[in-house]
């Protein structure tokens, strides 16, 4: 512990002088003196950064090989064939430094894949106009809502809308997997995943949400994922995805509070909310009676975002705020809204007619009466620079990168970096990734993969092609982590114990079985890069090749023996689970009876279809040879770790 204390002091007091030397030294250490003979097959770097990794000169407990595996397991979604050699050749520290600057890494292959995907290049309003929610369309078609009474032309329209919604959903969900699979900017993608979970939104919040997701990911989160925390927070606060998800778009001054301008004075575009099916037109002016009805129907203050802004996004639940702070933060943010989310919104808008213009006190800071958007801007400044926020964000990042129980000294140092750099996420992450705690033996392979990480790491190891369909995303959902599918705003678990239960591990094993049977789109268990040389090799060589490609080389003798041979001393044959077909021959699944992977709160479910990966519903032909070994490796306990 004393060591950590002194390191903490050292790292921030002497950093400017020592980093350059440290980088060189650590680079040598990481390479372990072995010649970098293999050609780097890694990404092309647009410009060689003249910036060394900031490295604490502390001792590293991990061996040079372990460090390579470790950074690939924590800074990426899993090593591809050749990645180990590439990192070894570049040097662990220099490679980290590269990853910390994604803008300098060429990513044309990934960009090319996403170029034709409409959701990523079209604003949400246009998407929703083009592909209306089927329920909304049915409503618009009026009294003929009963599908059986639709005209042929209307049925076509309905079918197109359903297909369009499927396309939007598919692009948003598959896009997450395919980007993680393809991008050379792996650390940026890990951070994108981290922030999308930190600022979690839910695809089934209501029909408008799904149209926002691709933009939220690619415009709001990713560009800011290694930038300034305040900028990220403000981008999220103004994003239609969050405004809609946490209801701030409809939060307005309570009736006993002064408004910045009288209702009806501005923001007339909101009037369309009163119209059914969005016929009101954007500029429709409301009568005073309509304004009153609108205010009544939509209530007054909504504390939802104000509360989560502090509890989940910044200070943390024990960060030292009160219910009064929640109310005053919510008041300050009234009028932060978007026009007409039901028909696609139009981006962030400040509506003074909704804004509570009274004076407020937020976390001890006075906000004067009579102000507008500045109220909310001040709140974001206050909460993003609150000491609790530095600690909370540092804690979560250390938990993500180092250990489920974060070393307190490292959290303190990372929080100090956060404060010193005014919330520069890149520098906070750099502090963590250069720490002795990060390279400790205790941290090595100590994290349990999330379902998303299980799937993507397998795809990467086997050199999979991106899957433009929803199937791989459904596999991730089957494993327990539907993408954009966390209903409550606290996001998916970030510690391993919460991912481990009987159903979850069964699904993970079955994912391996499906890979072995060749039932996962875009991936083959026997034709991945590296498999060619194993095809005619001995079973021992095949096992060692698979262990190296999928398990980072580290398995026990017992595990290796089981992978090599069916015989094992750990299972008396009588106790073994036999799989004779009388066991489970499930009936074929009727696609009409299979719900979409996500619960559909509205019940009428436009998103129905052959939803689940069939590979999970049926017994699969037994795998043999190399495919069997690959399937066993993915289903093994070791593969669940990173």
């Amino acid at each position, binding site marked *: 512990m004393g060591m950590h204390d002194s390191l903490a002091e050292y790292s921030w007091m002497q950093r400017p002088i020592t980093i350059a030397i440290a980088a060189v030294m650590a680079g040598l250490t990481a390479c372990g003196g072995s010649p970098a003979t293999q050609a780097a097959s890694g990404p092309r770097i647009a410009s060689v950064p003249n910036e060394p990794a900031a490295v604490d000169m502390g001792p590293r407990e991990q061996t040079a090989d372990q460090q390579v595996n470790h950074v690939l397991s924590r800074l990426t979604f899993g090593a591809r064939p050749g990645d180990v050699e590439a990192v070894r050749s570049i040097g662990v520290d220099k490679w980290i430094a590269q990853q910390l600057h994604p803008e300098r890494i060429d990513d044309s292959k990934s960009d090319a894949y996403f170029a034709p995907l409409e959701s990523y290049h079209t604003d949400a309003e246009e998407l929703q106009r083009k592909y209306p929610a089927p329920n909304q369309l049915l409503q618009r078609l009026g009294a003929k809502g009963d599908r059986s009474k639709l005209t042929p032309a209307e049925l076509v329209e309905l079918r197109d809308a359903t297909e369009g919604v499927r396309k939007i959903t598919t692009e948003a969900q598959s896009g997450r997997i395919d980007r993680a699979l393809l991008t050379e900017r792996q650390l940026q993608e890990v951070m994108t995943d981290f922030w999308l979970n930190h600022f979690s939104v839910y695809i089934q919040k209501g029909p408008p949400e799904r149209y926002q997701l691709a933009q939220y990911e690619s415009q709001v989160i990713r560009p800011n994922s290694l930038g300034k925390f305040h900028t990220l927070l403000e981008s999220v606060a103004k994003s239609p995805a969050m405004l809609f998800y946490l209801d701030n778009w409809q939060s307005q001054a309570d009736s006993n509070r002064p408004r910045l301008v009288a209702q009806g004075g501005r923001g007339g575009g909101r009037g369309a909310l009163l119209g059914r099916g969005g016929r009101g037109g954007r500029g429709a002016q409301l009568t005073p009676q309509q304004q009153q009805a609108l205010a009544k129907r939509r209530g007054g203050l909504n504390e939802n975002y104000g509360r989560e802004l502090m509890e989940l996004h910044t200070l943390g639940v024990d960060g030292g705020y009160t219910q009064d702070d929640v109310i005053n933060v919510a008041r300050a943010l009234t009028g932060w809204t978007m026009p007409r989310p039901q028909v696609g919104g139009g981006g962030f808008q400040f509506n003074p007619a909704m804004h509570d213009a009274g004076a407020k006190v937020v976390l001890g800071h006075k906000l004067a009466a009579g102000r507008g958007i500045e109220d909310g801007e001040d709140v974001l400044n206050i909460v993003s620079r609150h000491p609790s926020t530095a600690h909370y964000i540092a804690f979560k990042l250390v938990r993500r990168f180092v250990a489920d129980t974060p070393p307190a000294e490292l959290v303190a140092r990372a929080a100090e970096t956060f404060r010193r750099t005014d919330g520069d996420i890149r520098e906070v992450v750099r502090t963590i990734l250069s720490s002795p705690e990060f390279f400790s033996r205790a941290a090595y392979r100590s994290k349990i993969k999330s379902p998303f990480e299980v799937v993507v790491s397998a795809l990467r190891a086997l050199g999979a092609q991106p899957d433009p369909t929803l199937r791989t995303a459904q596999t991730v959902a089957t494993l327990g982590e539907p993408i954009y599918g966390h209903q409550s705003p606290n996001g998916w678990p970030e510690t391993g114990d919460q991912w481990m239960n009987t159903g979850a591990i069964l699904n993970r094993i079955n994912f391996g079985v499906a890979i072995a049977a060749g039932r996962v789109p875009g991936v083959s268990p026997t034709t991945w890069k590296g498999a060619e040389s194993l095809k005619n090799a001995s079973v021992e060589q095949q096992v060692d090749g698979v262990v190296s490609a999928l398990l980072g080389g580290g398995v026990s003798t017992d595990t290796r023996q089981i992978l090599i041979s069916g015989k094992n001393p*750990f299972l008396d044959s009588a106790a073994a689970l036999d799989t004779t077909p009388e066991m489970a021959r499930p009936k074929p699944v009727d696609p009409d*009876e299979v719900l979409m992977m996500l619960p559909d709160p509205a019940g009428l479910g436009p998103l129905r279809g052959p939803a689940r990966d069939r590979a999970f519903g049926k017994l699969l032909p037994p795998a043999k040879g190399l495919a069997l070994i690959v399937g066993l490796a993915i289903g093994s306990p070791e593969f669940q770790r990173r």
Partner: protein
Amino acid sequence: MQRRVFVKSGALALVTMGLSPSFLRRTAIGMELPLAQKGKVLICLFQRGAADALNVVVPHGERAYYNLRPNIAIPAPIRGAANLGAIDLDGFFGLHPSLAPLKPLWDAGMLAPIHAVGSPSNTRSHFDAQDYMESGTPDAKGTSDGWLNRYLATSGTCEQCAPTPFRAVAMTPQTPRILEGSAPAVAMNSLEEFAVRSGGGDQTARLEALYRTGSADLIHGTGQEMFEAVKMLRSANPQQYLPQNGAEYPKSQFGTRLKQIAQLIKSKVGLEIAFADVGGWDTHVNQGAATGQLAQRLDDFAKSIAALAADLGDGMENVVILTMSEFGRMAKQNGNGGTDHGHAGAMFVIGGPVKGKKVYGKWPGLAPEQLYEGRDLALTTDFRSVFSEIATKHLGAKNLNAMFPGYSTSSSLGLLG
């Protein structure tokens, strides 16, 4: 520190504390918890989409009901044409005619409808209202776990019960919000799918061996637990299941899932909490009346539940079925022959321990001044009151404060004996 735990085929083994499988950890903690009652089962059924309570449990004695719903009201009971009007219960309330399969349960004193029940929150968002009903904390979104899970986490299993991975099962693709939390719960799409998918060879045996290499960490332990669970289920032989007492389950997804819940109960794998959900209740457009869209949903709903009750037969003495939906719908019909989102709703409580043949809940009336915000059925019973009563009286829960933090009630409806 070591604990005695169940690991293999019911045998006890020693596992280092902190590394034991999840349900075993809970069992270890459970030693200090109040004990659940042996063999008691609670089946929660969620009607997602907001079922129209006023057309499910019909207030045919209320004149305002017919004024509010000129085209979609369920007619008062019609002598000689039972399928066209409400099925009378007590002279004031009646069941939708599609709920006829449930009438024998009413007659047997096993069915208790509750009216004007639901969440005190004023939200009319499906998302929020389902969230509140499942978290059990209306208007508090920060709650990370569901109330059924908090029940599991704060109640022990019974003294005679073997630890089982099947204590809580959701027949859903993912763990539902209501069962999310620290206590283990198994979610499965179907019993058939709860199996290793390898169709032959020694793949499955080798996978199991990989989890039995002697390492006592969480992953290995959970894997062993899983293989035990798969074997336990297999010995229950779900493929050979024949419903009893002439029960005929609809071939729908909902009917199939209720059948599989019955299978789990009968196979004695230790099921205490079961969950399933069914969609299709968001009837904004053309919901119909005695026939039509809502009638079709109710037909499947009632036939499935009636089959489950028949199939379980005498076993219903230990079973309570609880149905819920996130809110009710507007008292007045809308311009599309449907109903928009409302407030209070209705629940059914069904089972041997239920004091049935009575409609519970104070009826608030449907006159304009009696409606909530001038438009919806008002709330007279907080859903937590119902959940609390069932948890304490049926399951033996002691720690209601943990299940419903910040909620206390002095009165209960007296649903259970």
